[in-house]
């Protein structure tokens, strides 16, 4: 006698050939080694992204874009909508945790040289997704239309405007005019819920497809070991269930953060008010913001701020293109230089972020 579940499985299997998929998943293995813990950060980032999509859609049911409505609609969500406070707080907390886990994921991949051939496309799509995540953060920050967001957006777009030649048009494009106004809010809303998610989904599709096709990268030192000696575990169900376990813990952490530290709304933005003291960007932009403060006004004949922005741009580009200039790792050789660069970047980001936070 077949159970109801078996009948249901058979019904679906006859139509979509589940057997093939399960067979494929059953053959997938995840390397087990002392660095295995880092593999989970990709999954956690994916989970957080899914939360963002779900909570974002829920917020969309009540959020109203526009200078006169945005702040009030968030206020309404926070105070009148059932569990609106929870959804909004989780959305805000997840946004920050997502960038954090994505960065941890990126650095773990970097130090393990998992970007090396043949995973260059996976690395580049991952990096592009991280940049998009920063765009999500920047655009989403303005949507409540509160005082801090308003002035942070002003400062942020001003910095973009300092880039030579293309800066000014980019700034005007982002703001929808010369100043941060309701037009900027409409644009940022559009970027946040349509443009960025569209691009992100395409990149995420490629990224996941590549991971599934190529499997997870083995650490370089295990390259010499015979395949039979390498420890591994099945992706399904072992690794997937472990992923699920971690996701549940992260979900609990988010609930705790949302209840004990509900995301504040602050004061409504007022274009005519003077900027409050100590305007700072979100923590993930803080190291760049702090660096720009330290750069002198003029270095030779170049504007200090412009030079800083160009250097960050160049550094970001080189970082993204690491698989293409780290030939040694691709050949299976050790490349200490890449490690030193990575360690320097991590320390630089942490120290400048802490200084920016304290000062």
């Amino acid at each position: 006698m077949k159970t109801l579940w078996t009948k249901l499985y058979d019904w679906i299997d006859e139509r979509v050939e589940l057997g093939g998929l399960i067979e494929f998943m059953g053959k997938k293995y995840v390397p087990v080694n002392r660095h295995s813990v880092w593999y989970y950060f990709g999954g956690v980032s994916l989970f957080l992204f899914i939360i963002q999509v779900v909570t974002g859609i829920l917020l969309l049911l009540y959020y109203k874009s526009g200078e006169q409505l945005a702040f009030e609609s968030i206020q309404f969500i926070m105070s009148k909508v059932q569990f609106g406070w929870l959804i909004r707080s989780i959305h805000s907390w997840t946004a920050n945790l997502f960038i954090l886990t994505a960065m941890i994921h990126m650095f773990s991949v970097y130090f393990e040289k998992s970007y090396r051939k043949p995973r260059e496309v996976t690395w580049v799509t991952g990096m592009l997704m991280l940049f998009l995540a920063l765009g999500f953060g920047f655009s989403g920050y303005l949507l409540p239309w509160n005082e801090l967001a308003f002035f942070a957006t002003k400062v942020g777009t001003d910095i973009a405007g300092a880039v030579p030649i293309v800066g000014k048009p980019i700034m005007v494009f982002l703001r929808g005019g010369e100043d941060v106004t309701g037009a900027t809010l409409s644009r940022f809303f559009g970027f946040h819920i349509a443009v960025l998610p569209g691009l992100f989904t395409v990149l995420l599709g490629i990224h996941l497809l590549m991971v599934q096709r190529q499997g997870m990268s083995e650490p370089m030192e295990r390259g010499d070991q015979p395949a039979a000696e390498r420890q591994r575990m099945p992706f399904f169900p072992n690794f997937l269930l472990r992923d699920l376990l971690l996701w549940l813990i992260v979900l609990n952490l988010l609930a705790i953060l949302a209840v004990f530290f509900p995301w504040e709304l602050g004061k409504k933005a007022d274009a005519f008010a003077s900027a409050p003291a100590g305007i700072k960007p979100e923590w993930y932009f803080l190291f760049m913001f702090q660096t720009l403060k330290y750069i002198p006004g003029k270095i030779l004949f170049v504007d200090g701020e412009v030079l800083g922005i160009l250097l960050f741009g160049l550094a970001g580009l080189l970082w993204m293109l690491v698989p293409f200039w780290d030939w040694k790792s691709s050949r299976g050789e050790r490349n200490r230089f890449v490690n030193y660069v990575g360690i320097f970047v991590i320390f630089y980001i942490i120290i400048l972020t802490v200084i920016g936070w304290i000062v």
Partner: protein
Amino acid sequence: MRPYVRSLAAAFIAFSAILSAASAQDKCLSCHEGVGGKPVELFQRDIHHAKGVTCAGCHGGNSKTDDMEKAMDKNAGYIGVPKGDEISKACAKCHSSAEMMKNLHSSIPTGQFEKLQLSVHGKLAVNGKERIVQCTTCHNAHGIVSVHSAASPVFPLNIVKTCTKCHGDPAFMRTYNPSLPVDQLEKYRTSVHGMRNLKGDAKVAECASCHGSHDIFPVKDPRSSIYATNVPQTCSHCHSDAKYMKEYKIPTDQYEKFSRSVHGVALLKKHDTGAPACNSCHGNHAATPPGVNSISKVCGTCHALNADLFSSSPHKKAFDERKLPECETCHGKHDIIVATNKLLGVTQEAVCSRCHSESQNAKGFEAARGMRSLIDSLESQEKTAVSLVEEAEQKGMEISEAKFKLRDAHQARLESRTMVHSFNQERFKEVVAKGLGVTASVREEAVDALDEYVFRRIGLGFATLAITILVVSLYLYIRRIERRQATGAE
């Protein structure tokens, strides 16, 4: 040579010239006496003539010679009749030099010219060539006498006419400040100051007493002695001087009381220029104490609603009949304190019981007691609502709407205080009821927010428990699978 040595030398040379001219016979005067004319006649009564200053002191030239060409030689410094700013400069030659004034045995202060230049009168005239006012505009040119002399145009009894020459001329004033009234003299003559001045009392305030003499600034200039925050000090200059005011037999503690009052604190400590100064109630040029019947109108220029309610209340008639000053009876005058609920009711501090006693006027007594009880309960409800909202806010709850409503509650309490002046219990109850309604709604929202705060924590506890059970189950399930896989592999 150091600058001060140079100045001393210059002063000495100029002084020697003037004195030597004076010591010799003033040839200018002796010749011009023959020609006759008003200036010569006036100059002989001039204080400068008495002090030995010759015509050359102002006109330049050589007054020791009777040779006209030498006397009026431009090389000898002859300038003829000074024009425009040259006039004040000629006066300033001595009046801005302490050394010169000392040598002329004069104790009058120096620096008038510099003050005049900075003042509103020191601005450029419409012709753009000279300043509006020169020394001679007020002091005359020849025949100048001491300011303490009754003949001086700036003597207290004469100065109002002197100022009015320009300030009472609409055609002239229009060219500088069309919005400035030109009826100050008429108003002044209706004031206590003006009437006494007309009777020959030189001690009472005239134009210069309040506006200053050389350093006059527009009323909106904080340097002006009649700028809102400076007015009380200006008035108190005379009115707080017991010795000076002795003969007028009026109190001299107004400034002291005012500076302690709600108005005084706002004006003098908080620098709120919208707060009333002396002139706001007593008037400016027509300064006089407001009459008993018109006090509510005077106070009503700011406290309009209170005044209207009072005028249509039963108290108006009662106060008029008993000749009680309206607002002042309950609130006082110069020492008005912040009006709190304590003023209302029948307690010892309350003012109602001064007239309404339980035995003689039971109806009024009960009304006062009832109104006090209502306003107290509104205040206490508002305090409770505020503390609940603060507590909810501190706990991180979004409660901005209730917080916004608190303004309505506060407004209702202010309205109820105003409504006290109608002395109508029904109208008062209506306003208080509105306030109580708002505070009840705020309280309800704040309590809901606090309940929600507890609910969230309990909810989180349940969610955490459920997730923990799931996590543990999952962990055990993974272990079971892996054990089975290990057994299978063996």
